[in-house]
């Protein structure tokens, strides 16, 4: 028969053990918030102030105006004026600048004559992401410059205008995207980390025999071991949420209760997964390696945290459906940014329940009270 008393006893033992390992305890509580604060500050995907080297061979008012247009946009800054065109390659190779703008002689003349005036922009394609964004900006700047020059102040409407509105994150701040996602990523890693060693440790230290000798049921062991970590995890998410809102100004538009409920489900699954790894592997070193590979990468890559799952090959898209972080990220972003409720997130909810059931089921199944 299952007994709450025994379950609580196991939980208490685990808690005491955790408390005695003071530094681990501090890390368990502080690590998520620390990482969130740290990354929230450090990560900035907003591309501005792209360093540009300029070679102006035209040296006219027009050519200077074009360079100014680049600078005034805020996306580029002139880091250097080149003396020779040949220097461009060396600058790019050394990574001093991300782009080189070359305005050939005759630029102003061509413009005035209504001929296409070629301007060359060399970009360091190394960082494809920055280069793509820089290219977009440069295109837009050149287009606006042309229109201003050609129309000379005449008000002519563009034939078609795209009126773009950005929802959920109107200023397109990468921080708003990153903070909710980061909470999910950090928690999926921390959760596995918290429990991945618990049972392997008992095996390695030889205390498994003592545990096996007690009348405690394996369900009680699994849940008892989970309990303290669930508490830590919930605490971590709560602090991270508050920090995200207060420190980073990320909007919180949804319901706290929904987030808490989903977090609980997620933690049960993720912590259960950790226990499963631990019980199946029985060695702390191996458990660490497996936990790292099994949680860190999928959470980072296949969850949609940084990269759109839709852009991935089909196989990976299929794999991503079994990555719990994917659903949890949808939940955190939904609750934080979109302010959607269960009417949209019920799909994620169903998956979370399934994940919790699978995680706990695996953990219980892998945990044997037999000394082999």
């Amino acid at each position, binding site marked *: 028969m299952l007994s709450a008393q025994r379950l609580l006893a196991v939980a208490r033992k685990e808690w005491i053990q955790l408390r005695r390992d003071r530094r681990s305890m501090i890390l368990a509580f502080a690590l998520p918030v620390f990482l969130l604060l740290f990354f929230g500050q450090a990560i900035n995907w907003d591309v501005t102030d792209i360093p540009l080297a300029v070679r102006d061979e035209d040296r006219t008012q027009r050519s200077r105006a074009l360079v100014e247009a680049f600078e005034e946009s805020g996306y580029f800054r002139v880091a250097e004026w080149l003396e020779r065109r040949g220097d461009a390659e060396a600058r790019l190779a050394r990574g001093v600048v991300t782009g080189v703008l070359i305005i050939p002689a005759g630029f102003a003349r061509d413009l005035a004559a209504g001929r296409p005036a070629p301007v060359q922009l060399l970009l360091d394609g190394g960082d494809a992401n920055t280069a793509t964004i820089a290219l977009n900006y440069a*295109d837009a700047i050149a287009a606006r410059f042309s229109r201003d020059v050609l129309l000379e102040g005449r008000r002519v409407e563009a034939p078609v205008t795209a009126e773009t509105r950005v929802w959920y994150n109107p200023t397109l701040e990468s921080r708003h995207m990153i903070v909710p996602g980061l909470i999910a990523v950090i928690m999926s890693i921390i959760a596995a980390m918290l429990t991945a060693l618990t049972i392997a440790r008992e095996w390695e230290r030889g205390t498994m025999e003592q545990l096996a000798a007690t009348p405690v049921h394996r369900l009680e062991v699994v849940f008892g071991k989970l309990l303290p970590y669930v508490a830590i995890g919930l605490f971590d998410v709560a602090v991270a949420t508050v920090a995200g809102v207060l420190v980073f100004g990320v909007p919180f538009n949804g319901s706290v209760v929904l987030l808490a409920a989903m977090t609980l489900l997620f933690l049960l699954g993720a912590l259960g997964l950790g226990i499963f790894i631990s019980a199946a592997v029985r060695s702390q070193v191996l458990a*660490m390696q497996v936990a790292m590979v099994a949680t860190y990468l999928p959470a980072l890559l296949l969850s949609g945290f940084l990269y759109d799952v839709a*852009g991935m090959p089909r196989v990976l898209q299929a794999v991503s459906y079994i990555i719990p972080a994917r659903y949890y990220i949808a939940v955190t972003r939904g609750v934080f940014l979109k302010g959607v409720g269960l009417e949209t997130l019920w799909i994620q909810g169903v998956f979370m329940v399934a994940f919790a059931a699978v995680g706990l089921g695996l953990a219980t199944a892998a945990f044997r009270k037999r000394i082999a």
Partner: protein
Amino acid sequence: MRERGSARPPDALGTGPSGLGSGPSDLGSAAASLPLGSGPEVLRSEPSALGSAAPQAPLGSSASRLDSRPDGSPATSSAGCAGAEPSSREAGAEPSAAEPRPLRPGPSWRAAAAEPNEVEPSKAEPGEAAAEPGARASARSARPRRESLLRIRALLRKEFRQLFRDPRSKRIVFGAPVLQLLLFGYAVNTDVHRVATVVVDHDRTAESRALVDALTAGGYFRVVGRSDRSADLAAALDAGKATIGVEIPAGFARDLAAGRGARVQVLVDGTNSNTATVAQGYIARIVQEFGAERAAAAGALPTGGVDLRARAWYNPDLASRVYNIPAVVGAILMMMSLLLTALAVVRERELGTLDQLVVSPITAGELIVGKTVPAALIALVDMALIAGIGTLWFDVPFRGSVLTLLLGSAFFILASLGFGLLISTVSRTQQEAFMGMFLFFLPAIILSGFLYPVHTMPAFFRALTLLNPLRHFLEFVRAVFLKGAGIGELWPQLATIAVMAAGVLWLATWRFRRAVR
């Protein structure tokens, strides 16, 4: 630890030859040390000694061993041990350095040590250790360097054996990097294409359809749904089914034809700010080009203007994979190095086998070498695997020289291993080391320029990245792969990484020495 040997001479030197004989030898015969110095047969029995030595046993026995160590005069030297902290536990390491050279009859020790039946009892009962000391001990000092090498060799064997005793370990060590590379290679893709788009076309004319075609033609956008109701746009974005919503109002074709400036509403899901920024740029450009074409056909717009010709060097297609795969090499190398060493020392401590190592004649430096080299070799094999698959499977250009890559990777691996060992020596439990590793690894990844460009970080974090070996290695490895740079251009990165490696390995050795006191 050699230096320390000379720092602790009093009893070693003071007791004279006879003392020398008995002193270190009982240490030497203590469980772990003997196999290390001895031949293969003895080594064979070693894993069991390390593996099965029940956690409870070594602690007690090693303590007694320490007490019985004294060089001839038990009382004084154990007192000395307690007082002169630094040397107390490492004493076993010293003999080779501290002992006077002259005394050492050649190869006799080998025979003695290789005597298996001598190993067994000594392992069982430390007390008997002092049994046959003189010859071996003096012999040990024979050729310090050679012996040091022998000890390292033995330690290496132990490490390799321990690593590969569990076949699952092998799978993780070599399988995980490949798996990660595949994952990274396919998943890390910042190229914005096939963005899910929902279209609401109220106009339903040839012109409006032409605009939608123009949007999807470049492969950047993919229509996942059409509808008549604007509300469906919002619902699709809310549910995350689409990232872009395009709404073409009624009268679009009419306005276009009349030159009144037609309008299109575009809704962008800004949740993923990166995708949103890029997609927004694409839409603006496509729509503008669409308009310009129509206007030019009608002769409404003046010709000319700035003709921006952009070219991306090193990566003309702006494929993010080309940029990311070399970086993946760095990220995986660091992760594997950390995984291999973060628990290396603390594990021995938790299992109690560290005491056995400590009382053996192995020095701290030798131990670090023994822990580093196997991991470094494995990591190098991993590197070759990943780089090979990266170039052959993912078609990432490799323009540099293999030798340069090897050199840089070796330095970087040493630096990463050093950090792993440092974490391991600082931690008291494996759990703590695991978390400590993470505390180091995640920031190292984030502050490396792997997932996020360094130049957009705030100044403080940009400065912080300079302390991150991964950041320097990523610059190095990307330049070697994509730009074909050689040592001539990359020596600053190489030198930085080398200095870091040396520094952190030294720190790990120092910490270890302090930790075992």
